[in-house]
């Protein structure tokens, strides 16, 4: 059994599984790409070039990695409490909505102050939206899997309405987006390479790590993850922990929305603001195995991949959908290899080789 393996052996197994899953996902995608008439060498060269090939490419990949990582961190913290935050998408929109309100409403403030206020607004906006799901779970026992998804749609339509009405850019010629954020609220790029947003994501991972590993709240979160009874036995008010975790998850996603507004794209809020960061964040947290540091690394990987492919769309004609395909397959292979199924299979093979009968049971069929 995997649980009985030595820690270093376990880490080795995990690395192996990651590698195997990446290779398998690339293999399947390659078959599909080749069937579509793409020159594989050109495609992969372009993806690498567009994600890593120049300081400009690296900067863009980092910008792409930020919202995914931040959402993923929130998902990871909630995941440790056994709670699924599938509401990243809605929380991003609500965070970005609060952020654009502050960025446009207080545009006269000095840059650094304005940036801080805008980020805080994003955090609050996201936390409120996550908190709704948290409260519904803690007070009424509603499954956050359902409520967060419903809240995603509601947030989307609210923003969709606002950017077509009350907060639409008067000079947008009818396009559904807000006015641009003031120039001084844009997040600077350090040394033309490192976006400030990325530094924020690194700090957020550190905060999440400290929270989980070095505070009493972290113990509460993890004990809730081992079951409500365990959490209660450990002396925690599990309802409050569950609610708090959704607040944190929402805050992280809201921050993602604010940072994406100030440090990516075109500095406007629209109803096509997020290209699915909410669910990609869930995958990122899973690839990162629910740990903040792992999520940061996974976010980098996903960011470089997505940016590489969207760059290769222009140069090699690779559709953007290939990113979703690769990512989805990668995570699927990761889950498939992430069980003791194969260990059991190997055991029964060894047993049959040794002449004894393999363990019977449908479990391994």
């Amino acid at each position, binding site marked *: 059994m995997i649980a009985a393996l030595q820690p270093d052996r376990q880490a080795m197994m995990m690395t192996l599984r990651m590698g195997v899953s990446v290779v398998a996902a690339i293999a399947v995608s390659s078959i599909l790409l080749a069937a579509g008439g793409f020159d594989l060498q050109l495609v992969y060269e372009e993806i690498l070039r567009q994600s890593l090939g120049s300081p400009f490419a690296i900067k863009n990949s980092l910008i792409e990695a930020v919202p995914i990582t931040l959402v993923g961190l929130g998902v990871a913290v909630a995941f440790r409490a056994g709670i699924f935050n*599938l509401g990243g998408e809605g929380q991003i929109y609500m965070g970005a909505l609060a952020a654009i309100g502050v960025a446009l409403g207080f545009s006269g403030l000095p840059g650094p102050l304005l940036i801080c206020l805008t980020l805080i607004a994003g955090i609050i906006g996201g936390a409120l939206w996550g908190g709704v799901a948290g409260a*519904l779970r803690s007070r009424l026992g509603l499954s956050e*899997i359902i409520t967060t*998804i419903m809240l995603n749609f509601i947030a989307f339509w609210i923003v969709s309405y606002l950017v077509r009405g009350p907060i639409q850019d008067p000079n947008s010629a009818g396009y559904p987006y807000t006015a641009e954020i003031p120039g001084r609220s844009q997040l600077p790029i350090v040394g033309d390479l490192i976006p400030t947003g990325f530094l924020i994501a690194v700090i957020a991972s550190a905060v999440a790590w400290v929270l989980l590993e070095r505070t009493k709240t972290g113990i509460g979160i993890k004990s809730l993850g081992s079951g409500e009874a365990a959490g209660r036995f450990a002396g925690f008010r599990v309802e409050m922990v569950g609610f708090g975790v959704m607040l944190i998850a929402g805050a992280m996603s809201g921050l993602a929305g604010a940072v994406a507004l100030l440090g990516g794209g075109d500095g406007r809020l629209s109803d096509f603001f997020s290209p699915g960061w909410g669910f*990609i964040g869930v995958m990122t947290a899973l690839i990162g195995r629910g740990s903040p540091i792992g999520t940061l690394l996974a976010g980098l990987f996903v960011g470089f991949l997505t940016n590489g492919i969207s760059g290769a769309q222009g140069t090699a004609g690779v*559709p953007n959908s290939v990113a*979703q395909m690769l990512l*989805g397959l990668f*995570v699927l292979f990761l889950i498939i290899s*992430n069980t003791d199924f194969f260990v059991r299979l190997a055991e029964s093979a060894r047993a049959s080789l040794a002449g004894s009968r393999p363990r019977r049971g449908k479990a391994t069929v």
Partner: protein
Amino acid sequence: MSELLDIFASTALYATAVRLALPIFFAALGETFAERAGLVNVGLEGMMLMGAFAGVVGSHYTGDPWLGAAIGIFAGMLVAAIQALVAINLAGDQIVSGIALNIAVLGITSYLARTIWEGGDVPSVNGFDSITMPGFSEIPFFGPVIFEQSVLVYLAIALAAVSWWLLFKKPWGLRLRACGEDPRSADSLGIPVFRIRWQSMMICGALAGLGGVFLSLGQLFTFSDNMSGGRGFIALAVVIIARWSPIRAIAAAVLFGLFEALALRVQVTDINVPPELMLALPYLVTLFVYAGLVGRTRPPKSLGREYSRG
């Protein structure tokens, strides 16, 4: 105000509601089987999308919507097989694998649509026209609402009844529900838990695929990227609101369809409500109904928990 009353008085509203509810209902019915057997299937959305896509591809190449539908259903089952493998045999995380499946299917279908049809320009294919049942369609109200719909409406009603009978009147249904309540006890009584869970997930994939087929071949006669548009997720909510009953699933799906139809209808009147806010309404209503059912929803006891022998 009187305009709003006019909308509620028009049979067109209810006919639209039924039409919008159908794909959601099929998926929800499938999910009811899976969840009754103890499996949470967040991959419902992906199964619908794959069904919608494969249905169009099938109808395009064969020219026969029935063959297209069969291919769409099969494709839904194919996606379900992956989910079943992970959730049942590998005891992996069902929710995460469902989300991964959704994203993978979204990517694969969009990519393939672009590969098959230059630039993703999916042509119109043969689909299912609505069939008017002679005689029945002249019944006031129920005529146009139920009897002037695509042939799949009749299928939906029949399937709900059959599902109820299978789940609650047949020994197989009892065994299936036992797998969802307490798989270990079920296993010790000789019930083949793994096989029954596989069956439930295959039914789920087939019905979700059918729901997707209805979207593409029953309504729009073509495919567009992400055309399931979150209906799989709504079906998940419908299952809970229907409290895991196939019959109540009709009502829950129609309730959602009704508010969506209302949002669409209001847009073509003088009523001054922003259409986007109206479109948020079905989700808000779903949330409120779910909250209102507190204490009355009791999911299968082992829902979402992996089971391994040993």
